[in-house]
């Protein structure tokens, strides 16, 4: 049982480049989330989705885009990468609202130079 899978685990980008962080879950969860975590800090919610075709902004959505075409996949797109986007990105999913635990992926460490 794979759970939540993120790729890539590590990536270095140049300023202005774009890339997509992939997230896939095999638990048939409706709710999926993208967080970023800067060194020594807590997690900040970027975007979330309550089901296929539905996405909404979190606390820090600027500079990112998401899509949710299937229940399993929730990719995060970085357009015009900036040094401020250097962070560790975590994808998570959960079965339903309010109850149930969040399952996290192993994280994707992104450096923008």
């Amino acid at each position, binding site marked *: 049982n794979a759970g939540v899978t993120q790729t890539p685990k590590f990536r270095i980008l140049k300023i202005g480049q774009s890339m997509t962080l992939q997230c896939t879950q095999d638990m048939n969860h409706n709710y999926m989330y993208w967080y970023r975590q800067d060194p020594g800090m*807590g*997690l900040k*919610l970027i975007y979330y989705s*309550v089901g296929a075709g539905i996405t*909404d902004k979190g606390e820090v959505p600027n500079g990112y885009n998401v899509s949710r075409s299937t229940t399993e996949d929730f990719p995060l797109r970085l357009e015009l990468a900036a040094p401020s986007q250097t962070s560790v990105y975590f994808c*998570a999913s959960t079965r339903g*609202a*309010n*109850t149930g635990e969040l399952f996290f992926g192993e994280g994707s460490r992104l450096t923008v130079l």
Partner: protein
Amino acid sequence: LAKTTQPISMDSYEGQEVNITCSHNNIATNDYITWYQQFPSQGPRFIIQGYKTKVTNEVASLFIPADRKSSTLSLPRVSLSDTAVYYCLVGDQGTGGFKTIFGAGTRLFVKA
């Protein structure tokens, strides 16, 4: 949004009981309280969840008073491996969904 407030850090010694309190004055009627543990370079891991009174599982207990404006995570007899960041979350039922917001967390350092 139901904002949470936790101590920034705590120190303890092996074998002691550790209690971490979280304040959530604006908790909504339908909100549950959930605690997560995070080790360096890993994603957070679910510890325990509750709505009111007391919940206990194999790793922790969660105490929630009647007014639900705070909660306390209790870790019995901590070991060095319990050194981690602990997050208290309160579910926010946003329009059409569930926006899960993490606070800054509490850094627990367990000493030998």
